[in-house]
């Protein structure tokens, strides 16, 4: 039993419904109590004041006309058919005999009292609860005026019964409501939990079914589904990345192993080995570079370097990169030009931005044939600063542009590289809250690194 209770109590729906029910019961009780006091209490006070008025009238009557006349008047009142079910009038002479009235005379009711009080009496031969006012008259006789309260007591009982059954019904309804409410809530939450459990077991394709009702749960379910879609997308991305990474690391590794095994088993081992070792060293050095670049992209994507952002001049970075690449451009017969606007600084990581700019210039130089031009420009455009690298090489076909930022994607396998340059530039741009835009320079490529300006 306690186990069941504990389980019910651990349900928020049940608790809420029960608390709500208890509040309703409490409100009902207060309401009925007020009602009871207002009706029964007021009625009793009205009865008392009526008794007082009548007593006063009869005392005055007695003073004016004497007690025999009062006896006759009482008989007349009892016989007039008005209020005959409830009225109590009795006049008892000083010697104790009944002059007129409808009460059986007993000593305890002939003792005058100060206030009106309730007595058990015999009224017209029937037992009755009556409120009585007992007054001693000047000639020694006693006047009793009162009202039978039987009907009022019946009403009281009725009201009490109503209150009790009302409270009981409310209580039952509250508990039943709590149970129903709990079950309903449990059912709605159950579908969400079921989906969550399936996802936990690894079935990421599951989604929470959305009910026809456009209520809070439908909205919550939609939010959860949107979140799941995002996670699913990210997981797919991670899977794709780890697949390409595995491919791009395992392939050179197997190449190295193959070459070394072959050399080891070759008949002319002495000649084959040094060559194989040289090959292995070169491949492993390459692998190391790829690994390093991947780790750097991951580091950038983690956002940790945002901690050390400071004001950086994009122009200084551009000049530094231009001075690094001018010799290469010259050697390749390219013209490297620049127009640097007096752009404001950006908030960022100087090393990373230098890396990004160097990557863009490096790419442009690599993909532009002899005699071509590479132009580097910086510009302030509204709230952002743009660094543009434009070349008149072969450019990137429109349909390929979306894919060039993917890790290991290479446009031309004949050009040396790892396919990580633009991926890293994009990651760096994202870290800085900016973007890398690629456009056609007709012919050639325009790469725009757009970064938010500081102090805009």
């Amino acid at each position: 039993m306690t186990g069941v209770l504990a389980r019910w109590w651990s349900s928020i729906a049940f608790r809420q419904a029960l608390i709500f029910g208890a509040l309703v019961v409490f409100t009902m009780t207060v309401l009925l109590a007020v009602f009871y006091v207002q009706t029964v209490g007021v009625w009793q006070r009205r009865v008392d004041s009526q008794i007082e008025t009548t007593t006063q009238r009869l005392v005055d009557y007695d003073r004016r006309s004497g007690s025999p006349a009062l006896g006759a008047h009482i008989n007349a009142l009892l016989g007039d058919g008005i209020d005959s079910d409830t009225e109590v009038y009795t006049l008892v002479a000083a010697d104790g005999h009944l002059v007129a009235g409808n009460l059986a005379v007993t000593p305890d009711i002939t003792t005058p009292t100060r206030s009106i009080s309730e007595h058990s009496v015999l009224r017209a031969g029937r037992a009755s609860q009556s409120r009585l006012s007992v007054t001693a008259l000047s000639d020694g006789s006693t006047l009793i005026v009162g009202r039978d309260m039987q009907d009022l007591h019946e009403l009281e009982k009725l009201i009490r019964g109503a209150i009790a059954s009302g409270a009981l019904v409310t209580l039952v309804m509250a508990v039943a409501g709590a149970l129903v409410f709990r079950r309903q809530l449990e059912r709605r939450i159950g579908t969400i939990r079921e989906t969550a459990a399936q996802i936990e077991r690894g079935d990421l394709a599951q989604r929470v079914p959305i009910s026809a009702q456009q209520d809070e749960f439908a909205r919550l379910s939609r939010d959860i589904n949107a979140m799941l879609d995002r996670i699913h997308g990210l997981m797919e991305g991670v899977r794709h990345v780890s697949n390409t990474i595995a491919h791009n690391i395992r392939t050179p590794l197997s190449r190295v192993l193959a070459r070394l095994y072959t050399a080891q088993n070759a008949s002319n081992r002495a000649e084959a080995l040094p060559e194989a070792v040289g090959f292995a060293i070169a491949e492993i050095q390459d692998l190391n570079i790829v690994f390093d670049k991947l780790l750097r992209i991951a580091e950038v994507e983690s956002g940790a370097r945002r901690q050390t952002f400071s004001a950086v001049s994009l122009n200084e970075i551009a000049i530094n990169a231009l001075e690094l690449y001018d010799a290469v451009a010259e050697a390749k017969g390219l013209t490297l030009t620049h127009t640097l606007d007096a752009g404001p600084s950006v908030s960022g990581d100087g090393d990373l931005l230098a890396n990004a700019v160097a990557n863009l210039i490096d790419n442009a130089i690599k993909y532009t044939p002899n005699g071509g031009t590479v132009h580097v420009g910086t510009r302030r455009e509204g709230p952002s600063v743009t660094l543009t690298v434009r070349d008149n090489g072969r450019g990137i076909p429109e349909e390929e542009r979306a894919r060039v930022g993917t890790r290991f994607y290479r446009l031309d396998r004949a050009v040396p590289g790892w396919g990580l340059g633009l991926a890293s530039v994009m990651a760096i741009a994202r870290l800085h809250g900016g973007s890398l835009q690629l456009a056609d320079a007709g012919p050639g490529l325009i790469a725009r690194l757009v970064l938010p300006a500081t102090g805009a």
Partner: protein
Amino acid sequence: MRRCLIIEDDIENAQYVANGLRELGWSVAVCRDGVDAIGRAVEEAWDLIILDRMLPNDLDGLSILRTLRSLGRKTPVVVLSALAATDERVRGLKAGCDDYLTKPFAFSELAARIEAVVRRSQPDEGVREMRVADMRVDLIARSVERAGRSIALQPREFRLLAYLLAHQGRVVTRTMLLESVWDYRFDPQTNVIDVHISRLRSKIDKDATVPLIHTVRGVGYMLSPALTTRELTE
């Protein structure tokens, strides 16, 4: 004989570095345990300490370095670590290391950096002018003369030459040049440094009977009036 302490738990790596250093004429001791290493690093006198970061029992090599520096020891320390992230590197330099090299590395790169670090610990400041063979370089006026003929250099070319001069007779790697002359802490894909060197060479060594800038195959460059064969090997 110069003495070097290698603190490294991986025997293969430690032997590789130790053998290389012995060939360069160093006396080498290897310590594989971090706790012993603190004692040896502090109690004995070393010309160089090579320190791995991830040591047994979750000990970070940097704590040894901090202990050493807190005792006021200025022994040159080169950290070798697989932890390559920028903030790890910064942490290493803050702890007081003289250079931070990430694994894996070529021994030639390590050797070049060791030379730079060991010489740096004996500074020769206040030098205004340097002469190598028939080349005269005025470091204040930033002017260069070869065989009495003045040579015009761009500011960056002068910095490149000045760096080579400061390390004359020793190999400097491409990464070292990128770091010191361009302040780049990453490797551009293209061999930009080679092109700069050849441009500088065309200005300095053109028409000269004795070339001053030499390529050390697979490692980097060296500025020297005369070259021994040993220095040219990798």
